[in-house]
């Protein structure tokens, strides 16, 4: 691969990492002040904070690789929907608390595995960011896993809601493991993991949790796609960006 193409693949790859944490971080932060219990409110806000912190590292590095004199803030606040490279899963609306926790669990399990692999990346900077992030994300997974089980194996009502959340989000889970040219380029250069292996490891985490939570994994492997490639996001992302980006767009270059 010629150097420019390799840099572009790396840039795209870093955008995926940073946009996942940015979009999910913003989504989770929407609970701040309105979560069902104070402890959950604090937990969600802290999770969001970790994800936003990780975004600064990923998008900061993405901006350097791009070399167009942009920074993490500009990438976060001055791109529109079609330039975002996050998974469709993380842009889905919060719904009820059950759906938020299910989305978190599906992603956390992937994120932990991905970051563990990336902490051994041939790219030193990626390995450092991943090693830092994975410590925080292991903690997220511990909580989302326990909460999925507690709610799934809870009351009739909470079980019904968790099953509805899983059914609704399942078609968005498959995109995490779709392998495209960017993933292949990253894998070939020792930067990124083999997503086929990650899928097996993810199943090994997720399926026992569904079982313990008395939830039925949907049979269909149909997967919506278009988030990480940027080809087609769901309608929700644009609405989210309208809120998230309002201030820096209305008041360009405003400083704290």
């Amino acid at each position: 691969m010629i150097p420019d193409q390799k840099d572009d693949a790396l840039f795209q790859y870093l955008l995926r990492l940073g946009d996942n944490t940015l979009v999910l971080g913003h989504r989770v932060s929407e609970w701040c002040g309105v979560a069902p219990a104070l402890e959950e409110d604090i937990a969600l806000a802290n999770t969001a904070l970790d994800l936003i912190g990780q975004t600064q590292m990923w998008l900061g590095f993405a901006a350097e690789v791009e070399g167009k004199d942009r920074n993490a803030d500009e990438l976060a606040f001055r791109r529109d929907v079609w330039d975002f490279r996050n998974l469709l899963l993380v842009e889905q609306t919060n719904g009820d608390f059950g759906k938020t926790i299910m989305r978190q669990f599906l992603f956390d399990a992937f994120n932990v595995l991905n970051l563990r692999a990336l902490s051994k990346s041939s790219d030193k900077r990626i390995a450092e960011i991943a090693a830092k992030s994975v410590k925080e994300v292991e903690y997220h997974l511990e909580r989302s896993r326990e909460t999925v089980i507690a709610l799934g194996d809870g009351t009739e009502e909470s079980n019904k809601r968790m099953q509805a959340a899983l059914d609704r989000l399942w078609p968005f889970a498959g995109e995490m493991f779709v392998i495209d040219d960017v993933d292949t380029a990253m894998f070939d250069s020792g930067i990124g993991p083999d997503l086929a292996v990650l899928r097996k490891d993810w199943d090994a985490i997720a399926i026992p949790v569904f079982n313990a939570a008395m939830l039925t994994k949907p049979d269909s492997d149909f997967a919506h796609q278009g988030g990480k490639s940027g080809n087609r996001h769901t309608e929700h992302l644009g609405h989210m960006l309208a809120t998230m980006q309002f201030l820096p767009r209305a008041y360009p270059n405003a400083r704290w």
Partner: protein
Amino acid sequence: MTQATTDQIWEWLDAVSDPEIPVISVVDLGIVRGVDWDKETLEVSVTPTYSGCPATSIIALDIETALLNRGIKDVRIKTQISPAWTTDWLSEKGRAKLEDYGIAPPRAAGGPDRCPRCKSQALERISQFGSTPCKAQWRCTDCLEPFDYFKCI
């Protein structure tokens, strides 16, 4: 003016409080990773605790201010993310101060071993998270007081 020794500077930094938990210093917290003179410039390497911790930028500012007040003209704060911060780097002095302050220090077991107030071992977890990214909420079932636990990472 002769350059202050790095030992002297470490001592000065040990007087800079953590902005969220003022009883311990930034040195106790284990986030100052290096102090080196680069000709006339003093470079201080600082590692963030949690990547999204809002106190990080305040800490950098507090360190810089403290050193400028000590007469050092040129200070450069370097953010260093690797190796990633771990609560293993909390000093023994820092752990003792945390407990005196009412915050149970981190333990590899993943939870506190005793109530920082009445020392009872009858404890329950309220939440895995707390008022800052580095803490979780626990409660003593003997004295019934809730308390912060410094998460082990």
